[in-house]
């Protein structure tokens, strides 16, 4: 909320000549904060239940059909070493095998016993297929409803226009390069620059909100025989049911990558301030350097 919605603390400096004081702005509206945290919870539920589902058939294919026996371009398996009888986790990517025991395929429980399963038990939802489906689909509906609230809010309040859409100036290569350089130096934004999202941040949010999450919903729906009966064009968009499942998995990985970078950024650029702003809305703007 850079411009109109900014509120400045009553004791903010009246004159620039005075020694710099911390300025606190109102950065995140209630709607953004609420939908953000609901979304965070939903994404965790979707991830752990999704990985639980993936473990029931840990192989990915292109096209319409795919089952054990059809060449997969990505799979995770638990095999047995015939010499030692020890289980071995094998991850296969495009025909290349990697031994991933301890990470994927076979992991160890607290007693040090090997456990077969694509993704490790500590990462996935406990329980079986029925519970994983229940959680995944209920959470998916919540994601859609929460997302609709966010989209309506963003459209009608100008949140997208003012805060998320990068301007032409920001998209200029020179500006982009400068911003990438700032990120590489882990430089915290200060002064006027801290009052709005930087261009990489804007692009990341725009891609997540308008590309990745809609693709997740649509590829998820493409796996439904009921939905594709009414909307068979979903098969054509994503190249078939198994392709949709594969894209669903790959885009989920991109979302996990986004969240990890997001969390690192939150920590690096002032965890307390960032967390406070996403909980209370109030964000302290660092003064410009050298003032």
């Amino acid at each position: 909320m850079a411009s109109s919605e900014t509120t400045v603390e009553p004791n903010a400096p009246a004159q620039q000549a005075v020694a710099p004081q911390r300025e606190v702005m109102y950065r995140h509206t209630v709607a953004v904060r609420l939908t953000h945290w609901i979304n965070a919870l939903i994404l965790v539920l979707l991830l752990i239940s999704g990985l639980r589902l993936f473990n029931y058939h840990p192989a990915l294919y292109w096209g319409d059909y795919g089952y054990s026996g059809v060449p997969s371009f990505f799979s995770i398996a638990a095999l047995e070493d015939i010499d030692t009888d020890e289980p071995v986790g094998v991850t296969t990517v495009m025909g290349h095998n990697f031994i991933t025991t301890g990470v994927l395929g076979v992991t160890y429980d607290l007693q040090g016993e090997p456990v077969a399963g694509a993704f490790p038990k500590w990462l996935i939802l406990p329980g079986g297929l029925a519970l994983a489906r229940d959680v995944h689909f209920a959470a998916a509906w919540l994601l859609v409803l929460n997302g609709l609230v966010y989209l309506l809010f963003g459209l009608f309040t100008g949140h997208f226009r003012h805060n998320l859409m990068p301007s032409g100036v920001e998209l200029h290569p020179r500006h982009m390069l400068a911003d990438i350089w700032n990120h590489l130096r882990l430089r915290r934004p200060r002064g006027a620059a801290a009052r709005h999202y930087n261009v990489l941040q804007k692009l990341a949010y725009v891609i997540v909100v308008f590309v990745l999450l809609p693709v997740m919903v649509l590829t998820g729906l493409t796996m439904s025989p009921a939905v594709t009966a009414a909307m068979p064009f979903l098969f054509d968009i994503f190249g078939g049911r198994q392709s949709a499942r594969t894209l669903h998995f790959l885009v989920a990985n991109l979302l996990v990558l986004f969240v990890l970078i997001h969390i690192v950024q939150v920590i690096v650029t002032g965890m307390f301030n960032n967390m406070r702003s996403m909980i209370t809305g109030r964000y302290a703007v660092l003064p410009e350097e050298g003032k």
Partner: protein
Amino acid sequence: MSLITRRSLIAGGSAATATLVSGCDQNSFLNMQSLRRILDFGQLMSLHAQRLLLSGQPLVREYAEAEMSPDFPPNGTERPNGIAYFRHMISNFADFRLTVDGMVQKPLSLTLDEIKAMPSRAQITMHNCDEGWSAIGKWTGVPLAHLLQTAELMPQARYIVFHCMDEMVRTPDNSGFYYESIDLFDAMHPQTILAYGMNGKALPVAHGAPLRLRVERQVGYKHAKYINRIEATDRLSHIAGGRGGFWEDRGYQWYAGL
């Protein structure tokens, strides 16, 4: 690669399910009504949204012969236990009868030949397993709607229950047989058929001979195999666990459009 099949789920997983269920009873974690309601919310939303989407009763995509998958993995029971089924198998289902009863004006008892003499429909469709895999096969069978019209469904009938010959869990009250149910919305769909043929041949035992359900807009476990009785009913509570299917009684959703 060892993938967990539904069968191994029964063998190995039922112990886990049992502990889960008993664990719930002890700490009442998953049994909490409110939590169950949140989880059921997903199913309820999907049911209503998809029924709205499917109100025009569109057909699922049908494929060309060339698009069929080279193989079609059997799932669930691959050969029912017990002497009764074995006798059917060795006599090529000559003495097999399909019973259609419950809320119908004219209960039926049909031989396989009588069923094959009825109007038939062939369709090449995709089978979607809830574990994530899919295969494309060709199914030939009698539209369920024709069978139900022949038996003259009573107006109060709402569900069609499929009783199967494969006993999944041995119980004293015989409630461990596979069974499934759909409502009339799916039962009357043109692609909902009782298949006796697969990929141009007689339906193999591994795929549910002599009769299996194809209910194309729902996922794998709804497609009951080894059917020998079809019951029309107005409620599901009187059958086995009362939730409308063998897996439904073990926590799976009754509506499985996804």
